[in-house]
């Protein structure tokens, strides 16, 4: 008997007992659906965390002023005044460094026409858009010569565009007053939405760092240095070089503590992926238990079915079925049952995932390899738990089976 005919036979047998077949499948359906939904939520969460981390910048390294705690005593006060733009320029010369930008932050009021808005004024270098992988919505970004000439030019985040120019007219060429200085708007940033910490990243005005330091804050130091390494593999070497360079520039000798901190975002990424690994381990446990329970359900029903159909088995043997024909028939039935349960579970799981995504607004991703694995594994459950009942059927004595009441 060929495979297709065997499968059709199994189908017919299952359709004959629709309600029972469905109930038997339920264990597998629920198990697989639960796995699909939880995987979709887990992977979705992990990927969105990774995307957020990536959106912070390409291979980003951050240098902050201040010191690390040593021996429980926090040393090196006045940390906020240790980093200079010159440090940044020196770092830019290091191998493996793609770009460097000083960052100077100030929260103040911006005024345009009759509208004013409390916002973050960030002084940066032209490399900033590259480091943050941030594109422009309109206009242009300022150039190095505008940085050098301490130009009064500004690039607005989308929130500021809406707050300062609510009538919808293009802000390009308009003037924004910041602490009494008129800045000409030369561009707007693409919308970015909330950061991983829930901040509105679009609530920002970018200006040359020189302009911010000399025209607004009057300070000689910067809040941060943002460095983009040339590649992911360069992050650690660059971090080490930057540390050595700054230690030399700041004339720090051991055992003096550093007056700066060099950090990268890989620690975050690693933490995120290790929580993901724990999650996946738990999911695998859930999957194993539910499929085990589903499998036992299938074995139970197959045993009932073998008993119920003992006369049928006897008749089939009487007309020439070999033990392996009977084995194949019942094994196919349990595989069809469990695989069908797996497919149904995938469908329920996808529906459930869509429901979760729509109702809770959670990011969800259904990895296709999990769908395949779920269906494949259900099929294996069918083989494993169907084998014993099928074996039992195949080894019936023909006459005992025929005489069975």
């Amino acid at each position, binding site marked *: *008997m060929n495979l297709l*005919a065997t499968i059709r036979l199994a189908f017919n047998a299952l359709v*004959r007992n629709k309600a029972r077949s469905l109930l038997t499948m339920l264990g597998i359906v629920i198990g697989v659906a639960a796995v699909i939904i939880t995987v979709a939520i887990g992977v979705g969460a992990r990927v969105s965390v990774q995307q957020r981390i990536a959106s912070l910048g390409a291979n980003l390294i951050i240098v902050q002023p201040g010191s690390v705690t040593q021996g429980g005593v926090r040393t090196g006060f006045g940390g906020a005044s240790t980093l200079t733009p010159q440090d940044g320029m020196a770092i830019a010369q290091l191998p493996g460094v793609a770009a460097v930008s000083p960052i100077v932050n100030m929260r103040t009021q911006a005024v345009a026409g009759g509208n004013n808005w409390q916002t973050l004024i960030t002084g940066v270098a032209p490399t900033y858009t590259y480091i943050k992988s941030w594109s422009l919505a309109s206009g242009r970004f300022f150039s190095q010569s505008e940085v050098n000439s301490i130009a009064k030019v500004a690039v607005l985040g989308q929130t500021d565009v809406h707050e300062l120019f609510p009538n919808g007219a293009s802000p390009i060429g308009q003037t924004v007053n910041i602490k009494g200085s008129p800045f000409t708007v030369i561009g707007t940033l693409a919308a970015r939405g909330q950061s991983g910490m829930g901040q509105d990243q679009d609530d920002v005005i970018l200006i040359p760092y020189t302009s911010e330091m000399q025209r607004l804050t009057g300070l000689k130091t910067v809040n941060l240095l943002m460095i983009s390494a040339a590649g992911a593999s360069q992050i650690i070497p660059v971090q080490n070089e930057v540390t050595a360079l700054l230690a030399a520039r700041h004339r720090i000798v051991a055992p003096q503590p550093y007056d700066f901190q060099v950090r990268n975002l890989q620690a975050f990424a690693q933490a995120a992926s290790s929580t993901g690994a724990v999650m996946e381990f738990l999911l695998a446990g859930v999957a194993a238990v539910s499929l085990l329970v589903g499998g036992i359900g299938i074995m139970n029903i197959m045993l009932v079915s073998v008993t119920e159909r003992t*006369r*049928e088995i006897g*008749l*089939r*043997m*009487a*007309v*020439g*079925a*070999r*033990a*392996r*024909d009977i084995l194949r028939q019942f094994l196919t039935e349990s595989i069809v049952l469990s695989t069908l349960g797996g497919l149904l579970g995938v469908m329920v799981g996808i529906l459930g995932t869509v429901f979760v995504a729509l109702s809770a607004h959670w990011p969800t991703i259904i990895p296709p390899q999990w769908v395949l694995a779920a269906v494949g594994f259900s099929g294996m459950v069918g083989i494993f738990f169907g084998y014993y009942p099928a074996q039992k059927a195949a080894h019936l*004595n*023909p*006459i005992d089976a*025929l005489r069975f009441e």
Partner: protein
Amino acid sequence: MSNVVDVQRLRKVYPMDADEVIALAAVDLTIESGEFIAVMGPSGSGKSTFMQIVGMLDRPTSGDYHFEGRDVASLRDDERAAIRSRRLGFVFQSYNLLSRTSALENVELPMVYAGVPEHERRRVALEMMSIVGVEQLARHGSNQMSGGQQQRVAIARALVNNPGLILADEPTGALDTKTSLDVMRLFTELNQERGITIMLVTHEADIAAFARRIVTFRDGHILSDVANEERAA
């Protein structure tokens, strides 16, 4: 070697708790190709037991059994299954059709296990159904047919692989007199016109009267084995 069946000192003992039941004590019988044998005897005399062993559904406790020249004791289960599928046809008192399966599919069943291709199965099944006169019932399920119709379908099923021997255990036991006679005429026809060897068990003399040879069992022995001169028609 034209003997289809050759049994010598065939013995079958069923263990029963501490005791044992001797269903067949020592049976010798040969059946030649083309014979039509009726097996009679009182209830419990071992008729069904004998049929089941000859049909390779069961194994004897001891004794020799050769089917078409082959020593059955030496055959593996799969080889016995192959012989059941290709060389033997069974007809049971209770028809034993698969429920919720069409008459046509029931008739095709032995060919499925004999590996006959699908279109050929269909053709042969329909041909056999028309020989036994139930070709119009091809799509009917067993619950949509009378007892006589079901038994004819079962006979068609026994015929499809062109068996060397048809074994029928009280095939008319559940049928009324008229239908019984119809079925017996069918067996006679199959035997005379197609040369099919038939052994059937019956309790009724007027059924046995269709056969050419009547073997009578008693207490696991063959009491008599006689040619039937006045055959019914």
